[in-house]
């Protein structure tokens, strides 16, 4: 029997009310995964600082690679484990490195993640958060060569996946607003382009975790009771934890012409679930091109304005919340027309010959 496979996307840095914080889309992801054979998700959806509590059938795929999957350029090959290499930014204080190294060792000793070692970049990568006119966060990198060289070195030493932890310059006012639930995550957009860059250059699983300055560490640990969705940060900024857990068995990215029958390709994708206002990215555009059902969740609000109506999309299944999304996916898996779960029943149409 064919596997039922869906993808759950929550774009990074757009103040998504579910998934715009740290791992707060995990319950929705796991609920949907419970009615799928596999659910493809990206790090932003399930990364929760020191925790990654995604179900075993959630496939952890970085955003740029996910775009390539949606374009039909690569397939996903499930693996039991990956050898992970870690890149740390140059120029940080000892306290920052101590936290990062303890996070790595915790994942080795508690989870059994196979970490081959770490490297510190030869120069500061200089990553910065940038706020857009729509109040989303994107990022800039001013010395990508330093990052690429460190990744290349680790891959040469046997790394099958790369965890990156860089310092990201942010405005502390944005961090304060984020902890109060009034702003998008200021780190998110920059993290996305860091991992996109590595994915593009090397075609292997990767993810990013912020490498905090001592001031940022103190800020996160002493912000009082924060927005519940950011609480995973306030209990300890060991960001490499979730990334190493996710990468430990992230699927390998296989060029389409090299895929074997067991690999997952875009042809097998049954549905994509996304926030209602985020129809302007590659996943939604590819869904429209390939006529893949696109379940658009209204309750997951963002600062974006690319709704299905404005984009003129036709293959969209609007749902109010993730409860309904789970129901639509379960119906699809069972081969039931989900419209038949509602009333009134639509009148049967007489189809005219052309």
């Amino acid at each position, binding site marked *: 029997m064919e596997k039922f496979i869906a993808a759950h996307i929550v774009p990074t840095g757009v103040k998504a009310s579910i998934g715009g914080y740290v791992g707060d889309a995990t319950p929705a992801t796991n609920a949907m995964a419970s009615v799928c054979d596999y659910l493809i998700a990206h790090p932003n959806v399930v990364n929760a600082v020191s925790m990654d509590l995604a179900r075993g059938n959630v496939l952890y795929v970085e955003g740029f690679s996910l775009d390539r999957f949606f374009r039909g350029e690569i397939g996903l090959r499930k693996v039991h484990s990956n050898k992970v290499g870690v890149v740390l930014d140059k120029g940080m204080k000892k306290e920052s490195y101590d936290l990062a190294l303890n996070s790595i060792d915790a994942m080795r000793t508690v989870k059994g993640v196979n970490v081959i070692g770490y490297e510190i970049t030869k120069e500061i990568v200089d990553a910065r958060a940038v706020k857009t006119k729509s109040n989303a966060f994107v990022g800039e990198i001013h010395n990508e060569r330093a990052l690429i060289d460190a990744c290349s070195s680790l891959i040469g030493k046997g790394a099958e996946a790369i965890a990156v932890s860089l310092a990201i310059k942010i405005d502390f006012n944005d961090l304060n607003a984020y902890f109060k639930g009034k702003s998008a995550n200021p780190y998110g957009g920059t993290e996305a382009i860091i991992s996109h860059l590595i994915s593009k250059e090397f075609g292997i699983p990767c993810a990013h975790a912020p490498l905090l300055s001592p001031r940022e560490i103190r800020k996160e640990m002493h912000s009082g009771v924060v927005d519940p969705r950011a609480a995973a940060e306030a209990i300890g900024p060991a960001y490499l934890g979730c990334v190493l857990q996710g990468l430990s068995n992230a699927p390998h990215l296989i060029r389409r012409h090299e895929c074997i029958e067991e690999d997952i390709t875009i042809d097998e994708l049954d549905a994509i679930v996304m926030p209602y206002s985020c129809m302007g990215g590659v996943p939604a555009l590819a869904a429209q091109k390939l006529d893949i059902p696109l379940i658009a969740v209204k309750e997951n609000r963002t600062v974006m*304005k690319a709704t299905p109506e404005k984009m003129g999309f036709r293959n969209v299944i609007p749902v109010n919340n993730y409860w309904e999304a789970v129901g639509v996916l379960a119906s699809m898996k069972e081969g039931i027309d989900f419209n038949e779960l509602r009333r009134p029943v639509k009148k049967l149409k007489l189809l005219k010959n052309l």
Partner: protein
Amino acid sequence: MTIKNARIQLNYSGRPEKLLDFLDSYFETKGIDALRFAVEEKKGNKLIINASIRE
């Protein structure tokens, strides 16, 4: 090389299912290496796009 953010306005009056190809073609024709892009907003035929570009 550096990666910078750009805001781009384009006109598009084609079919929605052709939009991804249109945007890919735009970036390729202009020689723009876009690591990440998304249509933030669409007003009539006007697209407002945010892109992370390698320079």
